[in-house]
């Protein structure tokens, strides 16, 4: 009995250490944003945030380009969400409900797309974008990003449609609905929670994206936050407090929403790797 107690204590201590390691960098972002220069660059680091300096967050948004960056990120992310959901729902429906020639090939193609790193495709996309004048446009970024988030979106939605009883569709079909209106009237409302999860995944995939944005956007007014923030590195004249404050504002929505959808992401990723 004693040993079990010690075992539990050791386990709890271990978990607390892991939690500390997981959370410390974000805590440090917060603390750094709320520390004066004198203490930041002093001999001893300040370990606790100075909450009286909270105005740094307001200043970070009010001064400089950060609000524009966040707006651009949100626009790109909204576009990617809309496009990937509208492409993903019919794709998922085809994969879930029909047996057809080439289904295996489609599955494999999705797996390959999911596995293909963005950075490996940046060169040909750049040269095609130059030719078709898609550089320096938020729409071009939406198109590039959607390709890479579509597989996971389709897999999450396919899993949801798999769970919708076919009998529900049968009765609608008896009433004379065509396959498209069966999908829209029967399946879509039932899988609404999974659509929401897929939308969150798509949104934050685009929100976080960097390599296409830094390569395809030259106009500073069109930069998303990922590129803008990265541009702070090594730049003189921007205080580290501002960088950390904007980084935190950029990070918090992603973390908050991901916590809600993580189980969808995990099962989507794993089923893609499993079945493809």
């Amino acid at each position, binding site marked *: 009995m004693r040993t079990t107690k010690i075992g539990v204590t050791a386990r709890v201590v271990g978990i607390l250490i892991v939690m500390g390691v997981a959370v410390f960098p974000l805590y440090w972002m917060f603390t750094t944003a709320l520390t004066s220069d004198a203490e930041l660059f002093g001999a001893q680091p300040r370990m606790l945030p100075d909450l009286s300096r909270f105005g740094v967050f307001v200043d970070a948004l009010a001064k400089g380009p950060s609000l524009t960056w966040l707006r651009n990120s949100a626009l790109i992310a909204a576009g990617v969400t809309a496009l990937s959901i509208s492409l993903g729902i019919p794709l998922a429906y*085809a994969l879930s*409900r*029909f047996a057809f020639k080439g289904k295996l090939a489609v599955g494999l193609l999705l797996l*390959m797309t999911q596995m*293909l*790193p963005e950075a490996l495709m940046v060169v040909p996309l750049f040269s095609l974008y130059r030719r078709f004048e898609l550089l320096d446009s938020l729409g071009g970024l939406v198109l590039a990003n959607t390709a890479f988030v579509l597989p996971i979106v389709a897999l999450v939605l396919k899993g949801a449609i798999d769970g919708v009883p076919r009998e529900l569709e049968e009765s609608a079909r008896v009433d004379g609905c065509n396959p498209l209106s069966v999908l829209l009237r029967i399946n879509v409302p039932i899988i609404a929670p999974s659509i929401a999860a897929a939308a969150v995944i798509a949104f934050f995939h685009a929100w976080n994206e960097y390599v296409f944005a830094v390569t395809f956007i030259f106009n500073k007014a069109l930069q998303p936050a990922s590129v803008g923030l990265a541009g702070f590195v090594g730049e003189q004249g921007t205080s580290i407090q501002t960088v950390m404050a904007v980084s935190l504002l950029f990070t918090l929505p*992603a973390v908050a929403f*991901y916590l809600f959808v993580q189980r969808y992401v995990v099962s989507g990723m*794993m089923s893609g790797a499993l079945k*493809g």
Partner: protein
Amino acid sequence: MGSKWAPYLFLLPAAVYIFAFQAIPLMQQVYLSFTRTSLLNPTGGTWVGLANYVRVFGSPDFHQTLWTTLVYVVACVVGSVGLGFGVALLLNAKLPARNIARAVVTIPWAAPGIATALIFVWMMNPQYGIITRALRALGVDVGASGILDNPNLALSAILATTIWQLFPFVAVVLLSALQAVPMELQEAARMDRANQWWVFRVVTWQVVKPTVGLVAMLMTIWSLRRFELIWIMTRGGPLGTTRTLVIDLYSQAFEAQRLGDAAAIGMVGIAMALIVVVGSRAVSSAVEREA
């Protein structure tokens, strides 16, 4: 009517889209890899056959890139799967507030890569970074120019950051796999500590083994694709010690302005990703047949 064509109609929009934004770029990549093309004139390449491949494979810098990529990927997979598995085992027990612990552990995976890169750059700042200060306090000499500029430390620093980012995914996936292990056996093992290792080896490991394989494959692919973290933290330096394949590709294309060489490196990367996916599937089906 229509039932024969219905699946293809549903597929059509996504198929057209994937063709335009994946297949055509892939073909363009193949084409570019056989041309000498400058970034400044990306549509005006000249056909050079295999010259880019010959040059890339003949270059000692690319040999270093391949070696660095191998070390980076292997260390990331071993580190993230090992740590993630350990954390999953820790969390796999009746504990107060376990869901909160699980959510907190997920944070590194949910944080945007750019934000992660920025905070770690700051924590490793040569003078004022908290990690630098801590290492100095422990008597570790990181050199005047700091961890990320030290050829002996930069890759380890990048690895630590990447593993920090990756282990939560492994932990969450393996925790749910562990929950499929019969509870009575776990309880029995807990009662009789002498049997714990035996239960782990004979029961737990057998249940989670396929999932560990899958997650290791995903970690391999995710490490191969990791770009922004390394690009922001070191740009592949110092002395090329953190230059993985995607970093090499990007700097060939957008710094050296040689799109043809970059496309050839891209083809090597695509071949690697293919080998990993196909190879791991072959291994897992061979294991299944054996069992």
